[in-house]
């Protein structure tokens, strides 16, 4: 099914919103407002935006830590203010400031984030199982960095999801770098999508910089899942522009990363690509683009101001006491 003009504009707008929030958070980290760290997802926005823009609210989503999941959670409906408040340790944060940066909102189908990477896969299978039992055609999406696809947890989970035809979507956000290691030296093949073959799971490789391409492939997989045809694996090729975490040394295998490679990928920036296409198709004009840009900037500025002004908890010990056990 072709996208309507409104849907195309929504995808583009979401890209810009995520970028603005990312920039806000980088700034917050560098000015000492975020006390932990921030793993910027600059340049990788199209993966989350393309995959999540048209999910149902009751679909489940396990996002990776990259960009602290904003390209997924913001799009799924979590307000920027709540995300920022959690980073600022405010009581209004999505985990009352306990997590520092995780996002969690069961009403929006965001069950939380794993501290250890690759921990999502088995959990997603469990949720897929629940979704299948419930029979409401929910899908369960995992978007993880390519590094975690080596975990035994992934392979164990694929076996189950494929055998049981669970409504799972495994999306590889392949930014080509795992921490400080280029993934090509630790993975035997070029395409992670090949991993689907052994399990009989349909798999595709898409250009992760092209939000429309990502959306098209993911939507096909979602349709399959909702039709009880089982899981899919989609690999989105993208690239990490920033260091592993903002403020950390930007090295590969102990050496500074070459700027040339980064520049090559900057030319394929997902926002620029989408802009070019929509201008050509006549969906957007230069004026529209500036308007969207300004709107997103205002949204994030406002969110940042409100989140920072939100109160710190008055009784942290009480929160800790309550957080441990349910009544």
């Amino acid at each position, binding site marked *: 099914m072709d996208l309507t003009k409104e849907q195309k504009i929504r995808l583009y707008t979401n890209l810009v919103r995520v970028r603005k929030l990312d920039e806000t958070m980088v700034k917050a980290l560098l000015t000492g407002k975020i*006390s*932990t760290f921030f793993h910027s997802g600059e340049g990788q926005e199209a993966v989350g935006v393309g995959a999540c823009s048209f999910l149902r609210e009751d679909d489940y989503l396990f996002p990776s830590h990259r960009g602290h999941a904003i390209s997924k959670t913001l799009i799924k409906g979590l307000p920027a203010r709540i995300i920022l408040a959690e980073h600022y340790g405010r009581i209004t944060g999505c985990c009352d400031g306990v997590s520092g940066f995780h996002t969690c909102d069961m009403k929006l189908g965001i069950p939380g984030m794993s501290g250890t990477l690759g921990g999502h896969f088995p959990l997603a299978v469990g949720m897929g199982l629940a979704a299948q039992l419930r029979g409401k055609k929910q899908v369960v999406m995992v978007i993880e960095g390519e590094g975690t696809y080596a975990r035994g947890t992934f392979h164990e989970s694929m076996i189950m999801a494929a055998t049981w035809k669970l409504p799972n979507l495994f999306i590889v956000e392949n930014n080509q770098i795992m921490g400080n290691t280029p993934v090509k030296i630790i993975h035997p093949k070029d395409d992670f999508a090949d991993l689907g073959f052994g399990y009989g799971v349909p798999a595709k490789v898409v250009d992760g910089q092209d939000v429309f391409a990502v959306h098209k492939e993911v939507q096909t997989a979602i349709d399959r899942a909702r039709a009880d045809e089982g899981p899919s694996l989609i690999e989105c090729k993208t690239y990490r522009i920033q260091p592993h975490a903002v403020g*950390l040394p*930007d*090295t590969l295998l102990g050496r500074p990363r070459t700027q040339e490679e980064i520049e090559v990928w900057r030319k394929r920036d997902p926002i620029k690509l989408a802009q070019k296409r929509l201008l050509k198709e006549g969906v957007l004009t230069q004026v529209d683009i500036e308007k969207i840009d300004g709107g997103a900037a205002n949204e994030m500025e406002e969110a940042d101001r409100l989140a920072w002004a939100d109160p710190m908890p008055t009784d942290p010990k009480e929160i800790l006491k309550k957080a441990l056990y349910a009544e």
Partner: protein
Amino acid sequence: MREVRFIQAINEALLEEMKRDETVFIFGECVRGGTFPHTNGLFEKFGKDRVLDTSISENAIAGAAVGAALAGYRPIAELMFSDFFLIAGDEICNKAAKWRFTHGMKLKMPIVYMASTGGYIRSDSEHSQSVESLIMHTPGLRIAIPTTPYDAKGLLKTAIRDDDPVVYLYHKLLLTKKGEIPDEEYTIPFGLADVKKEGKDVTVVAVGFMVDLSLGVANKLQERGISVEVIDPRTLEPFDIDTIVTSVKKTKRVVIVDEDTLRCGVTGEIGMQIMEKAFDYLDAPIQRVAAANCPIPAGWYLEEHVLPQPPDIAAAILKVLGKDMDISDMKKEKVGFDAVKAFGDLGITKVKQN
């Protein structure tokens, strides 16, 4: 003697041992240069066969170490965060720890599992844990937790030469600590506690980073006429109970401090061993100070309520002494971890400011 940083001491031990013994090799996530740059320079010196970067596959890393050890090598598996030991719970606590025992003790299992440990960095509950209790509880594993550059180098060299699986934990906040080490080669045998400060009124047994916190408290209490003896066991398995018992016979009072969760942890074990061996010398019940019974929260304001703090240690000391004193000058540990600042001036790594 010369002054080095903790992280350099680790780096030197790795370099020396890999040079001495060709069967020693190191592998793990980002060992060619990563989060904790103590492995930097190894790749340039020893090449890709002995310094191997891996994917995020803790099960496979820990398990491959077992296989390599069985095949006659001395692998060093760098797991980056000790929290990740649990991901490879089966490989470390079952395979590495038990393989030799199960197979009639004919085999050797010379592995070093090394990783950073501890909190006070406002990370999250799965990157801030201390795992010494789980490891100490598991038969078959040795465990060393150095607190000075001198101990770090000497214990790591012993660990690499040991024929059993050794868990070697370095605290994130100690990596930049400076200290003196000898110019010549040395090792430190396992199972020898170190009296870090002598005293006569109360014995504080502290593990890992808690040694530093306890010494800080002890120095402040010294000014107030309380003489605290601080003992660092350095290795928890083998565990040197004798040095502690000797101290307790002198002071009659004990406080045990550890960063891991209190319940069913290291402090309970040490306390019971003291009780079994020196019950009649005790003038007051042993006091334990350790992390609260909950995961380690991240965030700005919560961690300090869970991890042991200098005021907690001071209060426990005063309690076993039956004294009341103003300790409002004992400050909570609110550090946070700035990698750029911490490693920027080490000279081991070239850091590009972003």
